[in-house]
């Protein structure tokens, strides 16, 4: 039995790393892409969804602490539902309904497609 504090420490550490990576994406993406569209949040949510299922499929025997660090902490901290929701609301507030719908659709379809692909690639061991 792993003591609870170790589980929480693994999640906290992963969450810090994931959040800093997400912040880095927030700083870098608007330099190349239209800053009026939340490209960085779309990217982290799709990429984090790929990583979580790739890791689960590729390392099924990983220990509980490693899983908590990568899946609960890192992927959980990297991806964000609240920033996605706010981004969609902000687009709606400037009457960009089409963009808001595209953003929600791309996030939903992208994230689910990404976990599916992560699972497929993660199972390929060669």
């Amino acid at each position, binding site marked *: 039995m792993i003591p609870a504090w170790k*589980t*929480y420490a693994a*999640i*906290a550490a*992963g*969450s*810090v790393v*994931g*959040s*800093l990576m*997400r*912040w880095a994406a*927030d700083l870098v993406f608007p330099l190349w892409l239209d800053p009026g569209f939340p490209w960085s949040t779309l990217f982290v*949510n799709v990429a*984090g*969804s790929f*990583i*979580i*299922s790739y890791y*689960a499929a590729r390392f099924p025997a990983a220990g509980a602490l490693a899983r*908590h660090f990568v*899946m*609960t*902490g890192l*992927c*959980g*901290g*990297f*991806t*964000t*539902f*609240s*920033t*996605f*929701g*706010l981004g*969609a*609301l902000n687009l*709606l507030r400037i009457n960009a309904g089409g963009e808001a719908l595209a953003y*929600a659709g791309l*996030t*939903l379809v992208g*994230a*689910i497609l*990404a*976990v*599916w692909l992560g*699972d497929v690639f993660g199972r390929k061991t060669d």
Partner: protein
Amino acid sequence: MADALVGAGAVAAGALIGGPARFFLSQLIAKHAGEKFPWGTLAVNISGCFAMGVLASYAGAHGYSAQSPFWLLFATGGLGSYTTVSSFAFQTLALAHDGQRRTAMRYAVLSVALCISAVAAGYGLADLYA
């Protein structure tokens, strides 16, 4: 340089609380509501979205920008890591793999619709009382 350090510290401090809080609450809810449907993650995401709406209204009223230490601590670090898309998507796939396609679809649509509504509700309520 100093700004980057303060910013990184704010994001890290928020994430230090946000990630573990998500785990604690989703486990607690799953224990009571059962693990057949991901109620824990859904509740965390909805509550985090509501809080994000309140925070955005407050930040707007007080002139906090997206790169201010205030926003980086509470929004980017705290609520950003409290909520999660990866677990949501992972659970959706797990439900589908388990032969529960309808439940998976319901979970996905419910999450997106309720979360955007929760941000709007939080924003609207906070605007009302500001």
